[in-house]
């Protein structure tokens, strides 16, 4: 499946799950910041992706869980090197450039963009 086709399907899913307009769902849009997603929406989106693309998503595979609560991974409000390495391992579809420049913990959710979601689905489809 072409990346543009994946994007279109994801756009439709996000419009439905988050009650946003088509034009708000740009590749750069952040799910948690710009599109107003909450943690339960991640589950909703996972279910919808599974139905649309026919693959299974394991718990924590789409968006990291527990990393920001772990004192080993976050110290003084910043993601540690170990935390960053763990994130890269668990959610390789994210672009970590911004987080590497400023590892503040509040920046973790900002790396969850529509683009990352497209990459996630692309990778899942390739390995399916």
């Amino acid at each position: 499946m072409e990346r543009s086709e994946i994007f279109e399907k994801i756009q439709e899913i996000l419009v439905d799950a988050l009650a946003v307009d088509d034009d708000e769902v740009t590749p750069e849009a952040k799910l948690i910041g710009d599109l107003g997603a909450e943690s339960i929406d991640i589950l909703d989106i996972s279910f919808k992706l599974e139905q649309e693309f026919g693959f299974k998503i394991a718990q924590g595979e789409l968006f990291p869980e527990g990393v920001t609560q772990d004192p080993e991974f976050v110290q003084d409000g910043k993601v540690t090197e170990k935390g960053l390495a763990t994130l890269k391992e668990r959610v390789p579809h994210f672009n970590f450039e911004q987080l590497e420049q400023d590892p503040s913990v509040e920046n973790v959710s900002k790396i969850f963009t529509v683009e990352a979601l497209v990459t996630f689905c692309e990778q899942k489809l390739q390995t399916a």
Partner: protein
Amino acid sequence: MRWMWIDRIVELVPRERMVAIKHVSMAEEHVHDHFPSTPTRKAMPMMPMSLIVEGMAQTAGVLVGHAEGFKEKVVLAKVSKAQVSREATPGSTLRYTATIDQFTPIGASTKGVVELIEPSADGGGEAEVIGHIDLLFSHLDNNMGGVQYPQENFVFSESFKTLMQTSGIEADF
């Protein structure tokens, strides 16, 4: 008053679907407040839409809870869709049919159909589909935020046990 918005479970296919009914009664206080008469309008007693959503949430919630023997704390997390096209007035019966769409350790999504059965003189009214309510449930102890909750299952209370029992469904929780 117990916060129970279904009267009886009439069908339960574990992990698949559940059907429950609710009789709308003039004896229920809320129908008098929803809506009372005004100087320009007659009273319009009807089942509030929000409580129809709650009725479906209880139907689907019991179905999801039953799937794991009521060990999970199943809470309504999101109303994905709620459309109801007709009023349910006193004397009518609402029939909720919930089916499990997806089920994981974190939660479940359900699809629901609301039917309205108007009473008839011979006692057998016809059912009309009046709405669709799709819901998302979270298993609280597996929440993504890692928040801890009390061990006791405060979701499935005594009222739910009574509902199962009076519906003739075995429930050991």
